[in-house]
């Protein structure tokens, strides 16, 4: 019930933010901070001594004849991502204090968080789908109302892409539902019951293999659009660039987790159904995304756009990890999949740090292009350091969170795909090179005097960014904090 209480509190906060006119930024920041603290308390209370499976299971039957019930359950996967979305939302709302946003901005931000929480705790496919779709609406509004140049086109592109993805998700859900109903004469939308590989093998892939392909196509398509993976990514650069910075933080940190969550919450339990051909296909897609996005990012001069591609590139690791998990068994599979889940968490936190420090740089200097920015260390030493830290974490520096995830995935991959990991390494090298290059151009070197005198970040900003950096650092040095429970969860699922 604790998690439902947090969810309802979030609902109340979202309504409050829409309603209260005065000092909406302060209120929204406090609200999101409270949610973050409560989520952490919840995690400590419920996940110490976690034994796999779901905690806080709760179910309220709404309509038994067609299987609709409000079912809640939190796994280690959901817990890690709940923590991530709470942190990202807090950071995004906090840094947005640099600009004058009105109350509906904060209302929409908290509605997005509400949608994420609903998605992560739902164990009924109808609610899963409703939240999955409902998240798009506030993000669409945030981009199309508060965005910069080309905001309407970007928002529409984002909506249409993800909408086309989601309708296929709906078809897959309906297929599972319909087959389960015909086979067992019980209609249910319970995710634990529908995502059961023995049921799918016996009733769908055995007698009617076509429907298995149909099902898997829908799931993969919708998750790959959200991720985004090559070739379904063309909404990404526009949406990230046109969105206001706080929304870009949310897009990179929290919205991108949805694709990964779909992979590990929906596709992992039915992994035995997925053929090795499909597994190879998504590994290749993942590697291709990694290399391709890294190469594209290398040629960007707009740093926001560059980091948008960098974000998409590191999501390639998640496709790879699922594919490896399907192809292998035992320890290697656990390593790959846990690495993938850890990567979602690490990637979100790192992108939060990168985008929020870049936001402060952009807000004070008025530029986000690495052609005009140079030598920022002289004027803004502290924020530059945070940006440097984010960049280093993003390229996978050992000791920081990103390394743990990438290392486990690469280690596991070598056991399965052998020397093809050369391409992964190649992608990582390109990533490292343009990351370092960006730092060199924008932070080091002689200061561009045209920018004038700049003010470093305020004390509060430094405190909040340090908090974020410390999380990344702790996860890099002591990953067991999350890695252990993720591993327990993964062992339970396989």
């Amino acid at each position, binding site marked *: 019930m604790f998690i439902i209480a947090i969810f309802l509190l979030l609902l109340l906060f979202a309504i409050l933010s829409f309603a209260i006119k005065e000092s909406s930024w302060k209120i929204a920041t406090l609200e999101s901070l409270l949610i973050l603290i409560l989520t952490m308390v919840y995690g400590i209370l419920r996940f110490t001594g976690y034994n796999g499976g779901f905690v806080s299971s709760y179910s309220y039957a*709404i*309509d038994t*004849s*067609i299987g*609709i019930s409000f079912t809640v359950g939190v796994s280690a996967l959901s817990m890690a991502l709940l923590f991530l979305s709470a942190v990202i939302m807090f950071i995004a709302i906090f840094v947005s204090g640099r600009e004058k946003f009105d109350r*509906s901005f904060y209302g929409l931000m908290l509605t997005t968080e509400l949608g994420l929480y609903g998605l992560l705790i739902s164990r009924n496919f*109808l609610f899963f*789908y*409703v939240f999955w*779709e*409902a998240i*798009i*609406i506030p993000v*669409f*509004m945030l981009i*199309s*109302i508060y965005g910069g140049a080309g905001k*309407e086109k970007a*928002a*529409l592109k984002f*909506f*249409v892409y993800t*909408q*086309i993805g989601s*309708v*296929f998700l*709906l*078809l897959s859900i*309906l*297929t599972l*539902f*319909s087959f389960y*109903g*015909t086979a067992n004469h019980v209609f249910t939308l319970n995710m634990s019951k529908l995502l059961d590989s023995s049921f799918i093998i016996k009733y769908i892939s055995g007698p009617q293999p076509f*429907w298995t392909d*149909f099902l898997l196509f829908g799931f993969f398509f919708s998750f790959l659009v959200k991720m985004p993976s090559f070739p379904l990514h063309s909404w990404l650069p526009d949406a990230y660039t046109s969105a206001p910075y706080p929304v870009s933080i949310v897009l990179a940190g929290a919205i991108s987790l949805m694709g990964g969550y779909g992979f590990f919450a929906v596709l992992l339990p039915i992994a035995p159904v997925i053929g090795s051909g499909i597994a190879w296909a998504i590994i290749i897609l993942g590697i291709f995304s990694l290399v391709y996005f890294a190469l594209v990012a290398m040629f960007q001069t707009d740093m926001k756009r560059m980091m948008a591609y960098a974000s998409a590139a590191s999501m390639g690791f998640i496709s790879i990890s699922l594919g490896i998990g399907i192809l292998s068994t035992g320890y290697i599979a656990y390593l790959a999949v846990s690495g993938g889940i850890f990567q979602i968490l690490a990637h979100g936190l790192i992108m939060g740090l990168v985008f929020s420090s870049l936001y402060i740089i952009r807000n004070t200097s008025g530029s986000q292009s690495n052609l005009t920015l140079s030598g920022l260390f002289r004027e803004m030493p502290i924020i530059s350091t945070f940006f440097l830290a984010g960049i280093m974490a993003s390229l996978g520096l050992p000791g920081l969170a990103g390394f743990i995830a990438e290392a486990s995935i690469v280690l596991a991959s070598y056991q399965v795909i052998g020397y093809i990991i050369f391409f992964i390494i190649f992608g990582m090298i390109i990533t490292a090179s343009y990351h370092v290059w960006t730092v060199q151009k924008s932070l080091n070197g002689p200061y561009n005097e045209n920018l004038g005198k700049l003010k470093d970040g305020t004390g509060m900003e430094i405190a909040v960014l340090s908090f974020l950096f410390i999380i990344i650092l702790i996860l890099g040095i002591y990953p067991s904090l999350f890695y252990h429970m993720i591993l327990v969860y993964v062992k339970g699922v396989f």
Partner: protein
Amino acid sequence: MNNIFINPQLTAMYPEIFLGIVAFAMLLMGKRTHNWKIYTSISIIALLISMVLLIRFDSSYVSYYGGAFLISNFGLYFALIMIVSSLYVAFSAGTTLKDNPEVFFATFLFVNVAMIIAAFSMNLIFIFIAFEGVSVGTYILSAYGKTRRNLEASAKYFFTGIIATGFIVLGSSYYYMATGTFNLISGVPEKGPMLIALILLFVGFGFKLALVPMQQWAVDAYDGTSNPVSAYLSSGTKVLAFFILLRVFLVGFSHFYTDVFYLFVIVSIITMTYGNFAALSENNLKRMLAYSSIAQAGYLILVIAVVSGSSSTFAFTVAIFAAMYYSLVYIFMKGGSFLSVSAVRKDKVEVNDLEGIGIKSPLFAVSLSILMLSLAGIPPTAGFFAKYYLFLSLISGNLWWLAVIGILNSAISVFYYLRVITVMFRKNDSNEFNLSSPVMLPLVLAAILTIGLSFVIFYYPQLSSIVYGLGVMGR
């Protein structure tokens, strides 16, 4: 002693008789007063009373007049939602009337009489008469107003409408030739004339639902008439036409389901694709909404395709439930969006004329956004749940390819619905809006209902138990 007033055959007609008397009384009152407020309130009260009368009478599965009149909860449900759509439009119709409001509202009530009769008819002649009653009434309603555009719209509607009438009459006579009766429930008919009847009746009845290729009148008629009338044409009368299609083709042609299936699959695919693509490039707001309602009609008739194309009982139940639920939601989302056009003080409203309304009245913008999201089928609106049940019936009827086509279409439609939303939140101070309460109230009401009706799905067991009242044999 057989008292004529408690004769069940007559009690069944009380709501129709009552509305008819009120309508004639209104025409007589026209000599005394021309105050539209009086007529609006009389019509609303009369419609509410007729709803009470409808609910009151015995609505178990009984048929009268030699099978021509079937009293069932299913028909009752549709009769009620058609009256609800009339009530919804009646609230806002009065303000747009310049003169002779009594004629407008009397015609309006006559249309409702015909609608109630149609909801219980199981005989082609009954259905034809009721259908014509509605048609003639709506010709008059759409001509209301003095501008040339109203008359032009009405003339187009009228001339194409009477051609459709001819098709229905000819189709009915072929139907009689094949079956030897006008009743929809008949023995095994002859194949040849029955197929001719299928095509002719399809053209005749499909006309009112604006299915492609009988769609062009709708765009012009909706565009030309006043906003409340186009709201009514696209909500109440569309639901009626859809209901008649369900009855005629699922009950009357139950021996020819293969032909019905192919006909409706082809027409449905063409209709929704045409409607969506035409709406994409349309800048006139009312014409855009008209194309969108053509596309919506394409989704609606998927129900007929499911029922005729699959033998699964579950698919049948869900499909008919989807039809019932979709019709109810459709009234508010479509009616509300047509009524919202009145907010712009202009004759021909472009989509871009809504610029800046989001800043002047966030309530209006949010309400219209909800309606647009619902039309596009995005959760958590009721439009999503309507589509959810529709696609569920397609999947459980093994018609996955039809579901994919439908779903791709609904993804395309997102483009033009969302364009309205983005336009509303742009900054522009030059547009003038009429945000008085007669404009705002129905829109806000529709938005609230569009969210609120999502909860109707919790009554799925109760509502799905009345689907047998459609009258399909063996189901």
